[in-house]
């Protein structure tokens, strides 16, 4: 039997991080597993590339927080090279030249916030405690297969009852705040606690990442909460930088998957899932090969999982309609720089310890809302929100000694531009981002050795994420938990027997979280036992 015809127990389509996690769990359970990746490297949107000689860029995804701690343990990721470097600081420059600089000391942060508002410094602990309680309440939901709201099966009804009991045991304030996060705007919540623009600007930035909302939009609370659900060493809301970037992390996942016996085949794009009598039996590769397995798992986003890999005519019309209307509308871009040295912030001359975490260019809710306004009407932001990080200050192996890489996550950059297209606007976006940075860090331009601009269109073209949505589908309440990616199909199964989904478009995706990959494997293994 040739390699092309080898029979596997399970095939995972897509070597993004969820595909790798899924394949690793399936292989660990004893299934002969093949992971197929269309590109020359695994990782999907979590890759690191040497796009300029000696300089390693986190082309797309750029930091780590949400990866489920149980996956780290169960897949023995430390043994396979996991190394999450602490990101201890956040610098939030202001348009008047001042700044908010937070670090890892509680009282130093208190005094730094008090420099802007004593009331905000006082509120900071209350806000953090409230947020931690809400995160702690939601955490079990992140780590379990969500119940099927539409099932009459006794098991499912029991799980719904468990969920109800869990909610009922929350203290009223935590439950109320949870509902506010899930339905309201981040700005409303932040207004309850804080008064200063810079504090609210910084804290609201988590409420818009990857999403077509502004901090004052209903739904931004959910985005904020989601980003606080991550943790580093048990501390909610902390972020880390994996050695070698998120590409370094997905290499760790690949090694883990292989250590459990999974095969990974690169340059192996899948054109379709082969099904027979309503049952998936294999995949057809773009090169014409066919590979067969009892279980086929798509780690791609819902549009490609349901509308491209299989014939939609094999699916219920409601599902096809839901997926057709599922919102992607990517609004994020990356601009990555190779730098000759570290920038200097005028108010803190000679201080190069400012850059060991995030640099948050979003000095007020108004600033971010104005950036959003441009996107609402089909343009990219003239003064964009930027979540930047000079990653070489954490990992010197990213660059030649003494040089640096700067990763800039940029919003808002709507996938569909009103009067232009991204191939025409790519470098204009790069200039806009560079000019914005120059306005905060004079002489920034002099440091730039090289620039890579990655638009939503580039994300879609390179990685495959529809409309360049980094979460494989918007974080909108009607697209979460019970409904991710569609009502009744939130448990990783599909209407085609033996065909499953495990991408970030399923619960609890997106971000580099691994939960969908793990929970889908749990579902598959459970189904196989029945």
């Amino acid at each position, binding site marked *: 039997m040739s390699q092309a015809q080898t029979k596997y127990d399970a095939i995972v389509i897509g070597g993004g991080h969820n595909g790798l996690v899924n394949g690793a769990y399936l292989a660990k359970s004893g299934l002969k597993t093949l992971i197929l990746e269309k590109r020359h490297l695994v990782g999907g949107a979590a890759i690191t590339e040497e796009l300029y000689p000696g300089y390693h860029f986190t082309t797309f995804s750029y930091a780590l927080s949400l990866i489920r*701690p*149980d996956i*780290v*343990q169960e897949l023995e*990721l*430390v043994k396979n090279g*996991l*190394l999450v*470097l*602490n990101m*201890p*600081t956040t610098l939030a420059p202001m348009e008047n030249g001042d700044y908010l600089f937070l*670090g*890892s*000391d509680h009282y*130093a942060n208190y005094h730094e916030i008090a420099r802007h508002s004593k009331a905000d410094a006082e509120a900071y602990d209350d806000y953090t405690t409230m947020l*931690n309680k809400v995160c*702690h309440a939601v955490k079990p939901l992140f780590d379990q297969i969500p119940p099927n709201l539409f099932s009459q099966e006794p098991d499912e009804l029991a799980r719904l009852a468990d969920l109800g009991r869990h909610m009922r045991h929350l203290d009223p304030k935590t439950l109320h705040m949870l509902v506010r996060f899930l339905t309201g705007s981040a700005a409303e919540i932040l207004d309850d606690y804080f008064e200063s623009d810079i504090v609210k600007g910084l804290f609201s930035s988590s409420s818009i990442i990857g999403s077509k909302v502004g901090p004052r939009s209903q739904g931004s609370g959910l985005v904020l909460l989601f980003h606080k659900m991550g943790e580093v*060493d*048990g*501390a*909610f809301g902390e972020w880390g930088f994996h*050695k070698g970037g998120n590409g370094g992390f997905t290499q760790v996942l690949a090694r883990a998957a292989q250590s459990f016996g999974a095969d990974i085949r690169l340059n192996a794009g899948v054109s379709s899932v082969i099904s027979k009598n309503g049952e998936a039996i294999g995949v057809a590769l773009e090169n014409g090969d066919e590979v067969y397995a009892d279980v086929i798992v798509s780690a791609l986003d819902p549009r490609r999982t349901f509308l491209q890999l299989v014939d939609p005519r094999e699916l219920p019309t409601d599902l096809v309609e839901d997926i057709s209307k599922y919102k992607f509308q990517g609004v994020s871009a990356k601009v990555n720089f190779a730098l000759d040295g570290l920038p200097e912030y005028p108010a803190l001359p000679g201080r190069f*310890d400012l850059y*060991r975490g995030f640099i948050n260019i979003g000095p007020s809710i108004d600033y971010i809302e104005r950036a959003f306004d441009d996107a609402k009407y089909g343009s990219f932001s003239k003064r964009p929100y930027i979540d930047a990080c000079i990653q070489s*200050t*954490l*990992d*010197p*192996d990213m660059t*030649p*000694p*003494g*040089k640096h890489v700067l990763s800039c996550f940029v919003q808002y950059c709507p996938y569909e531009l009103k009067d232009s297209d991204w191939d025409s606007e790519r470098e204009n976006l790069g200039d806009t981002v560079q000019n914005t940075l120059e306005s905060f860090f004079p002489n920034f331009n002099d440091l730039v050795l090289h620039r890579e601009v990655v638009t939503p269109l580039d994300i879609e073209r390179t990685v495959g994420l529809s409309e360049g949505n980094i979460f494989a589908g918007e974080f909108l309440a009607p697209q979460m938990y019970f409904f991710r990616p569609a009502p009744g199909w939130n448990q990783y199964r599909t209407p085609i027997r033996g065909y499953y989904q495990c991408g970030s478009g399923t619960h609890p995706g997106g971000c580099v979280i691994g939960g969908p990959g793990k929970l889908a494997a749990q579902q598959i293994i459970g189904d196989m036992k029945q």
Partner: protein
Amino acid sequence: MVKKTPFFARTGPLNETMLWEHWAGYLVAQKYQYSELYEYYSVRNSAGLFDSSPLFKYQIKGADAADFLRGVLARDIGQCPVGRAQYTIWCDDHGWILEDGVVLHVDDDEYWLTAAEPNLRYFQNLSHPYEVTISDISEEYGLLALQGPHSRNILKQLTPDAEKLAYFELSSTQIAQKNVVLSRTGYTGDLGYEIWVNKDDALAVWDALMEAGSGYNITPFGQKVLHMARIDAGLILIDVEYHTARHAWVDEQRSSPIELGFSWMFRGLQEDSRPFIGRRAIENELVSRSSRWHLVGIEVDWQRYENLYNGLGLIAPKDHTPIEEAMALYDGEHNWVGHTTSFMFSSVLKKHVGLAKVAPYHAKSGSPLQLELVVNNRPLTVAAKVVKMPFYNPARKTA
């Protein structure tokens, strides 16, 4: 008045936290910056610089230096040629450990030894029959530890010897035109070097290292991170894993080298006829297997640890601050079988790990244990097991 090390003119201004400790009468940084994890990950991913000058340093010199040390130190220094260093221990007549340290064989008849406590009188009292001079050179030299995966890349810019040194080798060389003794040793379990420099040349060497390391994120690190790193590496610490027998009152306070895991130092003892202090007792313990306990590594069951706290409505804490005090260990029937000596959440390993003394019957790798934690002021236990040390042991350490 607390003393300052030869590097204080540099370390002083660098300590933004102003958190200092006294170590052997010297002022040393507990940590330099608010985030000790940044310092920790410098040791694990780039390069960290540590001022270990407060260690006591002795020069043992003379025609009988080797002969003298072969009788005083339990591990055979005769196996350590010029240009090599050796980790060693010394014991009393009853085979109880007095101290551990590193010996550098710097010249034909000359050794340098580091120790955590004063030992001049002890060694001098034993030296009379020998042609040997023991001098306290503690204040003449500054001592730095450059540790981490990029330590070699930094040092090789300053001396060609850096690339030549194998694990536990040393050389007399120059850094910034200053004479130094460079050894490939350390207390972090990582690739690393230690640098002895005359106190008058200390700042020049510090500056040269910081300059050469600037492209590699060289970061000074303090005591806290040293302790975190040494637990990762499974390295023992005086007054934590053991107390010197010299000042002990009862045997419960004393430890034998076998109990501390140093049996490996006595492999081939049958072929080694030298008399050394404590030899008979050590031989007896090896033959009769009379050790009261063994020092082992333990690892907490992460899932049960999470469940324990979640069940109480709490977030499970993952504190990387070492707890260098006893926490009780039990078997499945809640019989007391030992205690931890050091315990922490290792950020690099993503696990709670500890060094522990347990009864020999429970010392086998994989042995199940119950670790007592105090949660909400109540003693509760969580599942743990014995694991092999070092917990963290990158190939680069010895490569």
